[in-house]
């Protein structure tokens, strides 16, 4: 399991925000993306997850390998914790065992029959992250996974990620806080900020047509 990214450029709202991003991520490793707000972390993760096309560059990864966790958790408020997880388990073709493992792994045992609407923000986040465990996918693409988690839950989640890495999985994480993953490499996106055309950067296809 290896993921390679070469010369990746991605755009948000028609404006190229990142260009020339390249890295390789092997199984058992984690890569933490850093950079100020608006640098394009989310845009890059969405591009890698296949939700939007890359402007340029190549993303090489095994098919059906990504589990993507966005800012929002994708929970259904009127379904219980177990129902939410069971749905994703059947979508990804993993069984009830995976659901049980995820509930235990993210410490959701006492909340299992609670409707998602009645969970606190941090509990919802834990449920959203538990979804990763039922996907059974090797590459986790995580966008700010620790938002609204307390210190203990962050430690719990770091443990979950560490176990995933130990089992040969990989994780690509955009975050501002220190997850306590000592083995993770850090990629600062600052140097990859796309130059505007006035600074010699490439024109977008649309602007090029009018240049």
């Amino acid at each position, binding site marked *: 399991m290896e993921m390679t990214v070469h010369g990746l450029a991605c755009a948000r709202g028609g404006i190229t925000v990142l260009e020339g991003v390249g890295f390789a991520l092997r199984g058992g490793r984690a890569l933490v993306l850093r950079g100020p707000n608006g640098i394009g972390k989310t845009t890059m993760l*969405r591009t890698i997850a296949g*939700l*939007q096309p890359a402007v340029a560059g190549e993303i090489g990864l095994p098919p059906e390998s990504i589990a993507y966790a966005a800012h929002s958790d994708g929970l*259904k408020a*009127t*379904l219980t914790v177990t*129902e939410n997880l069971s749905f994703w388990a059947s*979508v*990804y073709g993993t069984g009830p065992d995976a659901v049980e493992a995820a509930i235990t792994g993210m410490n959701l045992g006492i909340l299992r029959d609670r409707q998602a609407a009645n969970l606190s923000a941090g509990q919802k986040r834990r449920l959203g992250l538990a979804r990763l465990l039922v996907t059974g996918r090797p590459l986790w693409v995580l966008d700010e996974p620790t938002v609204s988690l307390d210190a203990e839950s962050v430690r719990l989640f770091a443990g979950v990620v560490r176990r995933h890495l130990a089992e040969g999985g990989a994780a690509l994480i955009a975050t501002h806080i220190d997850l306590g993953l000592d083995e993770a490499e850090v990629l600062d996106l600052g140097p990859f900020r796309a130059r505007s055309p006035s600074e010699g950067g490439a024109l977008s296809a649309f602007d090029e047509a009018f240049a």
Partner: protein
Amino acid sequence: MIALLVRDLRLAMRAGGGFGLGLAFFLLVTVLVPLGVGPEGATLAKIAPGILWVGALLACLLSLDRVFALDFEDGSLDLLATAPIPLEGVVAVKSAAHWIVTGLPLTLIAPVLAVLLHLPEGGYLWLVVSLALGTPALSVIGTFGAALTVGLKRGGLLLSLLVLPLYVPTLIFGAEVVKRGAEGMAIATPLLLLAGITAGAAALLPFASAAAIRINLR
């Protein structure tokens, strides 16, 4: 895909899911029209096929903006798009769920409400048949409209404007089937055309809807 269908049906049945919205609207229309038009059986019998079909169509339209909007708002649509189910399959399941929640109950309750409108005796069978054949097209076409407007805030108005013209052929042939059935004339031509529209829409539109969602998620 069955899991998605079960989830959507379960969400529709739970509180705030919108099940019964279309049904209540249909009920209101068919109860209010006799009050507005007057109790003359002959007049009502004449307009009954049209009123029943217009009511069913508007009832379908009412719940369309919920097809994708809720999943878009809570982020599940992003996650579904990255899940192993093809997006075309997701869209087809969503239309099926919408039909089961609106079209199917409308079809089943229509003969009961048709009594209020003095629908002639021969029309009941064809009312059920035409709604059963036609309402799936309403759901599939409506899902396409919902896919086009998925990212828009308050896209309901635009959705109605986009979808209504596409509903017109279904309405014309559907109402024609009932009218001819009620008058005892041959119904084969409009019935076949109605079935053709449904079959064509169900076969082709999921692909268009999936493409529209992919663009809207960018």
